[in-house]
């Protein structure tokens, strides 16, 4: 917080800069999502041997924008029995929460709106709030189908949050930090260092990646878990009474959180902005070019996961509700719990040798090696990864082999 203010030249400069960053992120994100929506529809069309939207613009590229104009120009219909405030608040909350989560996503090295120390917890908290938009929309419509859809959705999202939480814990145990940039730094240097593929932990972490992927489908109400809006049972679930802009907000919010989940998948398991194979000599390029390249790699990974989401929607039939609950509570929860135990044991035993060394150096027990403590020893250069003049336990641990 303080850094941001001084960096932008005083308090108001800092605020202005932050607002600019947020605006840039949101605008680029929404434009990307407009094209991802089209991509989504094209993928389903291809699976079903159709052409998909191809009328507006070349190859239908402008379809999403035409849809946007159509939605915005329609009349907003609010049912007479609805609770007006809550009814209109629900889509706004959905969209805002989905966008707010992006604040802590590092899209490229150093390109992040808020580099929180508890970034992952923040993401987890925000994604657990997403249920409110749906449950409020379902209740405020004052109608049976939306209410049933809202209840279903709330139960579903709360259940799958549990397994998502445990999967995140396994990643955190491997990294030793709650900061998302640290998580990505930990996977540097080729796909064999990515959490999903890193050697001894691959037997646990790859299944964890699969669990996270399926839970992400359930958490964002995507098929095959789109029971809140199962049209054969509930018409359109909590969205039945919504029309025009409020409906549009629900839909954009849903897609923003889907892309957020794709981003989390690539950050937690697939190395974020790192290339699958490191290119030699690339360090000599200017920093902004490296960041830009990282951004494109990250976007490529997110698009890949989005493609997987679209394929799942095109191929897999819908789950029944009791099967969904069984999968969440009886299979994913125990599996991820066991994985947490295994990974914790692994992390403890592999770091057991470095911890005493660090504590010996850290004479004042502050949890980080400051300048006076570092005068006694010469540590290898490049160890201070974030260049703040202090070596934290994470930085020390990663280079422990070099020290000993």
């Amino acid at each position, binding site marked *: 917080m303080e850094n941001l203010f001084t960096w932008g030249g005083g308090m108001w400069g800092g605020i202005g800069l932050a607002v600019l960053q947020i605006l840039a992120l949101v605008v680029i994100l929404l434009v990307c999502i407009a094209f991802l929506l089209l991509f989504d529809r094209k993928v389903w069309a291809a699976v079903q041997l159709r052409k998909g939207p191809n009328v507006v613009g070349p190859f239908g590229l402008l379809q999403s924008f035409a849809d946007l104009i159509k939605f915005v120009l329609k009349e907003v219909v609010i049912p007479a029995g609805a609770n007006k405030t809550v009814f209109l608040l629900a889509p706004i909350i959905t969209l805002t929460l989905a966008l707010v989560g992006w604040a802590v996503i590092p899209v490229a090295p150093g390109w992040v709106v808020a580099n929180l120390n508890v970034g992952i*917890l923040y993401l987890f908290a925000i994604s*657990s709030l997403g249920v409110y938009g749906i449950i409020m929309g379902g209740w405020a419509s004052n109608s049976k189908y939306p209410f049933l859809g809202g209840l279903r959705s709330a139960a579903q999202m709360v259940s799958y949050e549990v397994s998502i939480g445990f999967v995140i814990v396994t990643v955190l145990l491997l990294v030793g930090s*709650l900061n998302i940039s640290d998580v990505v730094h930990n996977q540097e240097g080729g796909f064999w260092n990515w959490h999903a593929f890193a050697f001894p932990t691959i037997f646990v972490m790859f299944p964890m990646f699969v669990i996270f992927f399926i839970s992400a489908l359930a958490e964002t109400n995507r098929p095959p878990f789109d029971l809140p809006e199962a049209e054969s049972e509930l018409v359109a679930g909590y969205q039945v009474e919504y029309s025009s802009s409020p409906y549009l907000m629900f839909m954009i919010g849903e897609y923003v959180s889907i892309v957020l989940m794709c981003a989390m998948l690539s950050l937690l398991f697939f190395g974020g902005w790192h290339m699958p194979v490191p290119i030699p000599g690339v360090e000599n390029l200017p920093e902004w070019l490296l960041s830009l390249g990282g951004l494109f790699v990250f976007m490529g990974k997110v698009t890949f996961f989005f493609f997987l989401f679209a394929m799942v929607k095109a191929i897999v039939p819908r789950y029944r509700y009791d099967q969904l609950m069984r999968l969440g509570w009886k299979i994913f929860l125990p599996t991820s719990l066991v994985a947490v135990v295994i990974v914790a044991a692994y992390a403890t035993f592999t770091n057991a040798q470095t911890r005493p060394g660090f504590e010996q150096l850290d004479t004042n027990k502050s*949890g980080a090696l400051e300048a006076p403590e570092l005068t006694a020893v010469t540590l290898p250069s490049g160890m201070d990864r974030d260049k703040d003049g202090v070596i934290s336990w994470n930085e020390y641990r990663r280079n422990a082999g070099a020290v000993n």
Partner: protein
Amino acid sequence: MTLIAFYILSSIVVASALFVVAARNPVHSVLWLILAFFTSAGLLVLIGAEFLAMLLVVVYVGAVAVLFLFVVMMLDIDFVALKQGFQNYLVIGILLALTLLAEIGIVVAAATFGGGETFNPNPGGPTNAEALSNVLYDDYLLLFQMCGIVLLVAMMGAIVLTLRSRPSVKRQNIAQQTGRKRKDAVELKDVRPGQGIP
């Protein structure tokens, strides 16, 4: 800057806490309560306790308040009838409120005039999560584990109290279903014309 943010956030907390009591619709009350929780998390971030703030959001807003909202929406309680006997509890209510106020006053007075230790959740060195884990897993490990066991027992108690076996309910047996072979389900009969199956 921090002071402005503090005053904005705390006035939102106080106002929404007031609306929790004042709102006529119980669902609106719960929504105000959620706003109060969320804004208190903002206050915690302001003093540097970001880990606690996130826990508050995850546990209270993300889980507990959802269940509140769930129950309040499903129950069709006549709150007007409930409020009929409100005056009977007025004295106890005022006493409780005064006690709480006095407790807050004592804490504030002790911190202001006592010159005792002031609490700083972020004393510079390690991050929130590390500082907390140093306390929980080093200094108070036994107590922490005992808390866990108490919670486990409470959970088991809740399950035992609510679990009832209903033999009449039809359930899917997945192992049986997938283990079914063709010869268990289909039988070919050679039917003679005009005679039917014996």
